[in-house]
């Protein structure tokens, strides 16, 4: 205990704090980037999954299989698979890119389910109305269905991304200089584990908690029908 207290001024130097802030930024950046790209690709996946016709059957099966399979593989295993796969096909891909790709692969599987749920919440009659007006399948999705589904999709998608901030800690395993990696480094330099990992936990908390509150606020706000939001 005394050792921990004695290390206090040593540990909380500007240099260490700046280092932690930088790593926290990296953690946020790769989560945000991975989840955003993942969200976009998940939209494409969900759209492809609804392709009609017998010829598209393999495509639909592939889309369903992707979601089912990647939700059942640990993130750590996905990271290693991406790392070793990319290293065998290309030589100079940064570890940061590998982390983002791993996050992206995982985010697609999870957000695809969220997006599908949101799209199914739009009444079928809206789609029929669009069809009867000769809007194409893509136009129907882009102009009518998706705008109505987004309020249902966005809150849980944000909740997923926020909870994934924590899971990215595993990326430290392949040596990306994010928050957890810094923690291990500082611990190896001789700083107390309680002090280091307590601080790191607190850093994650500072990122995760306010963002999760923001997500809950958005959920409440988006749940209000537009009519009530306008006439205020």
């Amino acid at each position, binding site marked *: 205990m005394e050792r921990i207290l004695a290390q206090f001024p040593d540990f909380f130097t500007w240099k260490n704090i700046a280092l932690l802030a930088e790593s926290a930024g990296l953690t946020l950046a790769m989560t945000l980037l991975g989840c955003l790209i993942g969200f976009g690709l998940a939209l494409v996946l969900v759209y492809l999954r609804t392709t009609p016709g017998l010829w598209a059957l393999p495509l639909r099966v592939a889309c369903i299989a992707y979601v089912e399979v990647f939700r059942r593989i640990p993130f750590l295993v996905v990271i290693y698979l991406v790392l070793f796969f990319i290293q065998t096909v290309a030589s100079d891909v940064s570890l940061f890119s590998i982390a983002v790709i791993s996050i992206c692969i995982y985010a697609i599987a999870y957000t695809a389910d969220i997006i599908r749920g949101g799209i199914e919440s739009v009444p079928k009659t*809206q789609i*029929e109305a669009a069809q009867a007006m000769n809007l194409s399948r893509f136009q129907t999705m882009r102009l009518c269905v998706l705008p*109505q589904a987004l309020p249902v999709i966005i809150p849980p998608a944000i909740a997923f991304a926020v909870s994934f901030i924590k899971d990215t800690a595993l990326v430290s395993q392949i040596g990306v200089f994010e928050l957890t990696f810094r923690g291990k480094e500082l611990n190896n330099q001789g700083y107390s584990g309680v002090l280091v990992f307590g601080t790191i936990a607190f850093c994650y908390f500072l990122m995760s908690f306010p963002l999760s509150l923001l997500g809950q606020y958005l959920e409440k706000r988006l749940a209000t029908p537009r009519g009530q939001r306008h006439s205020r």
Partner: protein
Amino acid sequence: MPHLAVNDIHANYGKLAVLHGIDFKVDRGEVVSLVGPSGSGKSTVLRALVGLTPVTAGSVEVDGTSIDYAAPRAVKAARDRMAIVFQQYNLFQNMTVLRNVSLAPTKVKGRKRAEVEAEAMDLLKLVGMDHKAHAYPDELSGGQQQRVAIARALALKPEILLLDEVTSALDPELVNEVLDAIRRLASEGMTMLLVSHEMAFVREVSSKVVFMDAGKVVEAGPPAAIFDTPKSDRARDFFGKVLR
């Protein structure tokens, strides 16, 4: 040549057969009404005409050209010529009234937005909704939404307008504003096929009434003949209950 000829069409809803051979004709500028008990397939006829429910047999001719509902391109052509207004209006909730009306002409026909919107405003004026052009559907009453839906269908410049129980979802005091809009269209010579439970209105506005039951046409003719001196027991029984 009739404007719309429906020849012996059959349709299934899932595995259930709902239309077993429907025949009728609509002349140019004529208003024809489909009446009958619920579940008799009236709405299915309209849905089949715009390709929302698949037609399994029979043929449909518009202006003498027959439509092959198995071919996507033909279905598109059919939707170009016939527009449908739904019981539940089905306005796009995420768009303003004006955008709802101008959407298809800009996106499907690729016309200029300014020009389409000017036309849309005229149509909204026709149904008395121009003052709500920038409102969202959930800010309007059912009757107002239905009038917008009619304007939206007209914006497609259809040759034939299909109206599917357009007043059934409305509160009684809102029914007349919608019926007035339809009356105006009828007086302007629009060819219309309507499904309705408003018997007095059907009698007033249509030149022909088709009585359907269990997916078949039981009898058809001028409103006076069908309503006052029905030939079939089924029609007599039905109108006896409905007209009282």
